Every structure is written in C-alpha cells, then in structure tokens.
C-alpha cells in the first residue's frame, strides 16, 4: 500500500567555500489516500524536501523510493516522464497557460502525460474533472477572466486530470483569502480520498492542518515531530 518513501535524504548547498546542509537525513513515508502536511518555520527545509520528493532537484545523499524504484538513480528524462505521468503539481500561484482556455489547460496535461485516452474520451474526462472541481461552467474561459480561487481550482483539475499517484502542493492556499483557502483544501482532501492519491503539501497556515491526515513538523533540516 505504501508507495512513496524517503530514506536518509540529505541536501547540501555550496555557496563559494561555504557548505550549508539544508536537509539532515530525512526519513519519511507517505500513504495512499492520505494528505501529509509539511510545516515549520521559514528555512526549515520543507520546500526543499517537497521539491526533492517531486523530482525537481537532486538529493546530495539518500534515496527517494517511488513504486519500488530509487528515483535518485534515474536519468533526467526518466524523472521527467515520472513527473508527467505519475505526479501532479499545485503551486502557490496557479501558473496557468495564459493563452489556453480552462478546457485546453487540462487537454494539454493529458497530452504531456501521454494519456492513452482517445480524443472523445479525453473530452469526456475533462468535463468530468471540471465538474468535480466546480469549474465546468467556465471551460471556455481564459485565465485572465478567472478569479484567484477559480484559477487555483483549474490548477488542481490540471494536477489530477491524468490520474497521478502523488499530488505535490506547495502552499496551495497562500494566495487565497480564508474562505477560498478552505474551499481549495476541502477539494484537495476530497480528491485525495476519492481518487486514492498520495498528497504531500507544504503549508504555513495552521488552519489548513484540519484537512490533513499526517503532519510533519520540520526544524533546521530535520523532522521534529510526526503527528498522525
């Protein structure tokens, strides 16, 4: 059932002659259908941990095991393929493609993930996911005409349209007001449960922890506390 583990992960940045260890031997297990939150002060290493887990930067030492494979030994293109087909991303800002409609944003993700679905099936899937995030009525809208909350909903739809195994969310509610933050977190939690996704999220907002199954508190590159 467990599909994502990190074993003794270390990350050191070198700035001139100065070496700074950001992650000091992290061990972590993520479970299917659960939302895990990474919390901690600025500079505690939580964002670095998330980006390493997501294959966006390499480790200095240690292993990232996903579906039985050590991701740290894969080539850059193999990591890209894993990101495209098995991972989903939601960021602080929606980062939608400004010249694509809501519907096209999702179709692009299906293309990037090399979805085996036929054209009409893709269309049907897009409509289903848009309905799931409550954005089906805006499928022909461009990002410039959407509100912040609507953009983030579309970003979430884009992150799950290709049925990823793991969803990475870096401060997904940081640019939203309180009400919209709650809506988005409810959505992430529901999708995690409904689609049986593994979700790893970085957040500063303690109010959002009520939507998570596991909270990992970090300090100075180490896991301080792991609360289920």
């Amino acid at each position, binding site marked *: 059932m467990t599909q994502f583990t990190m074993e003794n992960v270390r990350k050191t940045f070198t700035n001139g002659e100065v070496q700074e260890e950001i992650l000091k031997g992290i061990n972590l297990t993520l479970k299917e259908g659960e939302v895990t939150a990474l919390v901690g002060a600025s500079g505690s290493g939580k964002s670095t941990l998330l980006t390493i887990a997501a294959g966006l930067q390499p480790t200095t030492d240690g292993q990232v095991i996903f579906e039985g494979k050590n991701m740290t030994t894969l080539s850059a293109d193999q990591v890209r393929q894993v990101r495209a087909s098995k*991972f989903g991303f939601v960021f602080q800002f*929606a980062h939608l*493609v*400004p010249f694509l409609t809501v519907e096209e944003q999702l179709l692009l*993700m299906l293309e990037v993930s090399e979805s085996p679905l036929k054209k009409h099936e893709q269309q049907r899937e897009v409509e289903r996911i848009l309905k799931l995030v409550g954005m089906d009525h805006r499928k022909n809208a461009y990002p410039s005409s959407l509100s912040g909350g609507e953009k983030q909903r579309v970003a979430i739809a884009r992150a799950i349209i290709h049925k990823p195994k793991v969803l990475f969310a870096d401060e997904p509610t940081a640019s939203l007001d309180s009400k919209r933050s709650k809506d988005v977190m409810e959505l992430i939690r529901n999708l995690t449960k409904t689609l049986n996704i593994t979700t790893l999220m970085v957040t500063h907002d303690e109010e959002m922890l009520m939507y998570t199954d596991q909270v990992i508190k970090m300090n100075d590159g180490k896991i301080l506390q792991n609360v289920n």
Partner: protein
Amino acid sequence: MNLALKEMKKNKVRFVILGSIVFLVSLLTFIISGLANGLSQDNAALIKDLPAGQFYMNEDADETYNLSRIDSSTQDEILSKQKDAVAFSIQMGFINDKAGKQQSVAFVTATDSPLFANVKHQEIILDSSLKDKGIQIGDTVTNNQFSGKFIVKDFVEQKKYSHAPVAYISMEDYQEIYRVKEMQLVFTPDGDASQAYTGLQAFSKSDFLNTIPSYSAEQMSLNMIVWFLVVISGMLFAIFFYMMNVQKIGLYGILKAIGLKTSKLFKMIWTQMIVITVISLVLSITLSQVFNQFAPQGMPFSLSFATITQLSIVFLIIGFIGATISGIQIKKIQPLQAIQQGEV
C-alpha cells in the same frame, strides 16, 4: 495540441507587429535585390548572357580590358585550337541618330560566332532600348570617327554594357573608328583556367565581371545592404523571442515541472517563426512583383524566381537561427525557478 498557433491566436497584436516588421524588411530586401540584379544586367548583360567559360586579355593590360591588345598570331592560335572561341572588343562611344541627336552606346565587334550578332560592313545592330529613342530598323546613323554611315539592320533584346545599349558593328568599321587592328579579348566557352597562353591572363566570368569599372563597387554596396537586411531580420527574431521568453520564464518552468519536453517548447517558437516568416514573405514577394510591374520605365529592376527562392530560404534559415539562439534560454530554465517566482 498546437501551442504555437493557440498563442498566436490569443496574442494577435504582438505577432502582427513582429510580422509587419519582418514583412517590411523582407520587402526592402527583395526590392534592393531586384535593383542590384537590374543594375547588374544594365551594367554587364553582354557578358553575363555568355555561357560559362574563360576570358583572356593581355597580361600587360593590368586587368583593364580596354588597355588589352591581343596580337593576331596568339588570337589565331586560340581560335584554331578551340573552334567555339571568339575574339571581341568593346569600346564606349556614341552614334548620331537621323535627327542628329547623340546616343551613348557600347560598340562591340567580334569574330564569327553565334554568341555575338553577325554584322556586315556599314551595318549596325542595336539594343532594343534605343527603339524608345525613336530609332527604327532601316534608319541611318553616323559616328564622327566613321567616314561612312550605318544602316540599322536589327535590334537585340537586353544587351547592355556599362549602362549603355550595345551596338554591334563589323570588325572593319570598328578598326576605322578606333584605329586598332588587334582585338581586346578572347572568350572560350567551356574553357577552364588550365588552358594557358603565353602573354595572356585568364579570367573566369565572375572574375572578368569584377574587372569592369564600377561593376564590383556597385554590386558590393547593394549586396551588402541586402545581407545587412537579412541579418537584421534574424536579429529581430532573436530579440523578439528573447523578450517573449523572458516574460514566460515562469510559465516555461511550470510546464517543464509538469513534464512538458523542452523540445516541445522549441517546436513552439520554431512554428511561430515559420508562420510569421512565410506569411511575411508571401506578402513581400507579391508586393515586390507588383512593384516590378509598375516600376518606372528605365528603372533597372530584375527579380528572378531563383533570387526570390534563394532569399526566402536564407530568411527562413536566419529566422530559425535567431529563434533558436533565443531558445537557449528555455533550455537553461529550471522548474524550481518558476515555482519560486510569482504568477505569470
């Protein structure tokens, strides 16, 4: 999904502005190239229309054809060895038409050859541009250094030399006007530089054209303008896409983070470059052909299909290089950069 066309459709104004600049630059390039070709024909059609081969002039002439004198024994030796060879001379001069008006011409005389018009004593064959000056077949024209009169026997199309219409006359009449017995040049069609003759210097056609006063200076300056414009268009693409890419670093980073291949982003800018260039070229070629039809008479303008094709290919290659150089940025973008940036 064709991201390139979708972006162009959404940001029409931005791409129309770039396209209109490329259109204007390429139109200017075609027009200047047409003028360069036209002037080249006006300056040396007599030589350019000859087949490939070797030109010989006296090595003491210091590469100046009108100082060249080829002695008759050497000329006979070449003409007897090579059946298609022809000896000829060119001198600038003038004729008086029947109204007494002087017309500048380039007098040309040659030994028997299908490459030059064959004329008899007191006959003259003129370039057809002199028809516009009122000269007709059967008219009598004179020259102050010639005791007799020339009868206009015929006209030939597009035979110019040093921007003057060519006037073919017989060797006998030429010798009377210019008081010389020797020919200036020998031309051997299909000859090559390995055929050397004592006292003569060999030139290929392009080398010989460059010995014509003003030809190389005129062509060099026009061609320099043409190539500058081509380079400018390449730089336009590089700068335009560079600016666009700078604005889209965040977007490209996110697209890379979600797994889009870098090659797909390159294909996107190449497609946009090709669409803009092709549309701009079609418009500028059409307009340059319209210009060709309505250009003032007397303006030397010649834009051949070969030149259009050659320049169009060069524009596409330069555009491709410009767009690719700007795309090197895309290769360097790290997804992390984008995540740490704000909204695009």
